[in-house]
């Protein structure tokens, strides 16, 4: 008997606070940082001093997810990060170039590897269990979820898998996004992201960790039904990919009550979403969120958080709505995302 998978604990840090539905934070820069808690409440000052933003956010949200689910030690830690520890990478690279390969401090180098976040969470928890990091652009978090799905299906006894996605903003490397049209050319308020018909988007950072269990607990939010990643597909091909993904899960497009889409205002690539919005999900409640938290490779962590909260509370914040559909009881939510036409992902969640 295949294990079911439930999202039972969540920890999230993004550019928005918990009350974003009523009081969304407004940003006017093309790159903006996350709204972070006081990290000292989670991590000892000595350890904190060496940590980059990505590690601080990752460790903190991992701890929050565990606490939420009342779990002390996870059976596995699986991390997704599209761009890894950029801050330490650029610190080491700048010194290497400036000092012409001489007298380099190793600390930023050893913290620059992509699995630093997962490794530091393990170190913090004293967790010697399975620990893997995925770095496949915008399919990084979904790759991590798929690994968790495998773990939970391989062993009927497995439980308590910690899965998360983290990406940080760094001064220099994040700024390179200005050079290759990943960003808008003119300043724009985040909340106005979809009002402007132009290339590029706005970028930010964040971390979302999820504690997955094989049984329903008091804190359980939703059931994670299935995930799929598709490296490249045409706009037309996408519709049949979505349909076959749903068919594999005994669903039709009309069974989806809410679709959470990764529109980021880039008029070169948003047609992937628009094609679904005007096509198979025309009569489905469509939600968007990147005008709140910006774009980054693991931004779908926020979409998972939204889906889990909607399925638990039954409430859909108006600020997310991209169309107006009479509200029905939400049972099935589909998350679809891509970035720069690559690394597409589909994630299906259900109410418990």
């Amino acid at each position: 008997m295949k294990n079911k998978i439930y999202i039972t604990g969540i920890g999230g840090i993004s550019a928005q606070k918990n009350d974003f539905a009523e009081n969304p934070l407004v940003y006017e820069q093309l790159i903006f940082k996350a709204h972070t808690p006081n990290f000292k409440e989670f991590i000892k000052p000595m350890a904190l001093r060496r940590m980059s933003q990505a590690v601080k956010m990752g460790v903190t949200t991992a701890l929050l997810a565990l606490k939420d689910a009342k779990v002390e030690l996870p059976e596995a830690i699986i991390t997704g990060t599209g761009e890894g520890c950029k801050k330490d990478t650029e610190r080491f690279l700048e010194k290497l170039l400036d000092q012409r390969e001489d007298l380099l401090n190793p600390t930023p180098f050893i913290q620059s590897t992509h699995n630093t976040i997962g490794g530091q969470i393990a170190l913090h928890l004293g967790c010697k269990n399975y620990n893997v990091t995925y770095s496949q652009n915008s399919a990084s978090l979904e790759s991590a979820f798929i690994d968790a799905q495998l773990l939970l299906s391989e062993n009927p006894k497995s439980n308590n898998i910690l899965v998360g996605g983290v990406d940080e903003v760094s001064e220099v490397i994040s700024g390179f996004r200005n050079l290759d049209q990943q960003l808008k050319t003119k300043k724009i308020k985040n909340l106005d992201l979809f009002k402007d018909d132009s290339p590029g988007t706005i970028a930010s950072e964040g971390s979302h960790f999820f504690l997955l269990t094989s049984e329903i607990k008091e804190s359980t939010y939703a059931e994670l039904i299935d995930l799929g990643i598709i490296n490249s597909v045409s706009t037309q091909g996408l519709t049949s990919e979505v349909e076959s993904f749903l068919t594999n899960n005994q669903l039709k497009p009309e069974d989806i009550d809410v679709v959470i889409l990764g529109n980021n205002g880039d008029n070169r690539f948003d047609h992937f979403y628009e094609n679904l919005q005007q096509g198979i999900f025309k009569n489905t409640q469509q939600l968007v969120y990147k005008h709140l938290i910006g774009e980054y490779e693991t931004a779908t962590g926020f979409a998972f958080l939204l889906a889990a909260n909607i399925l638990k509370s039954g409430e859909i914040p108006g600020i997310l709505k991209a169309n107006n559909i009479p509200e029905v009881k939400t049972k099935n939510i589909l998350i679809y995302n891509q970035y720069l036409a690559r690394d597409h992902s589909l994630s299906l969640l259900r109410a418990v």
Partner: protein
Amino acid sequence: MNKGVAITGMGIVSAIGSNTAMNYEALVSGKSGIDYPKNLLTKHKDLPVGEIALTNKDMAEKLRLPKDHLYTRAALLGVTAIKEAVEQSRLKIDSHTGLVSGTSVGGIDATEKFFTEFAAGNSENKEFIRAQHPGFTTQKIADYFGITGFVSTISTACSSSANAIMLGARLIKAGKLKRVIVGGTDCLTRFTLNGFNSLKILSKEPCQAFDENRYGLNLGEGAAYLILEAEDEIKDREVLGRLKAYGNSNDAFHQTASSADGEGAYLAMQKALITANIPLNAIDYINAHGTGTKNNDAAESVALQRIFNNEVPKFSSTKAFTGHALAAAGALEAVYSLLNIKKSQIFPNLNFSHPMQSSDLIPVTKLEQQKVNTVLSNSFGFGGNCTSLIFARDEK
């Protein structure tokens, strides 16, 4: 019975050759690929490395890429290795064919080349901005072979490709994919050479794994990939061997150093052995991680002695042939493990003369002829990441 996942193809490019036959030739003749850097633009010309003689231009021409291609060195190495594997297995590529690649360095070679230019706002080479991220290199490899479905990258430092091989097997077992290309690629860069140099763990001599007087590791580069397939896909094609079991564990001790008791390594081997469901003495040979650093070899020796109750099977490290190819190491050594099985030979641990006082372990130092049915291969990385794979002969 746990038969393991079928391996139907393998391909490799390393400092000792740009295909499996050349690698094998060097391994049996004891010919190391370690030398001073020629192509790598670094001032540290006194640090020996396992550099691949092929330049990016050589590889791009051979692969018939257009002049303005965006393939990083790791992507070029990756494509070169996969081409061999795909041709050998006559792999069918469709939406049920996946790619899982391990890389640590990714396209940092491009980043370090253009960083100053990007930082100054010069966008001439902007197509390489995203090359820094591991997925970029994997994407280019996927594009070359027309793989459009499941494509992912694992980045767990020096255990990346071992973890990629493990994930591929799990995807096949779960029925998520019918065929998957698994392995890893990493190239030499100033970033990693200087990184390991700043940690003072690079040896100015050819590395001496498990020797009392070892100074450190030699950095290497390379790529190697295996083709894993579901049973009903194999039909009458040759099965090179089977990935029988695997285990991953975290040392949870330090970001870069291994714990003195080698706990992470011990747990990874233990998991693999339990999954394989075989007695300890069924392991004929171990391809050790054996980087030649004080810390790794000491911790790995303790872990080996603990898990095998002081009756450690024959073992050697092949790092003195190839250098430590970081994320690709596990995949290079997977190919060597399959060669051990196929050729009934154990390749030597070069440059060994004095056993470590702490363990007294003596690796295989000369080519040995012996039937090898089962090989354990270790790969350990930064972040405490430890992975062990068990390869076995295909029993008809």
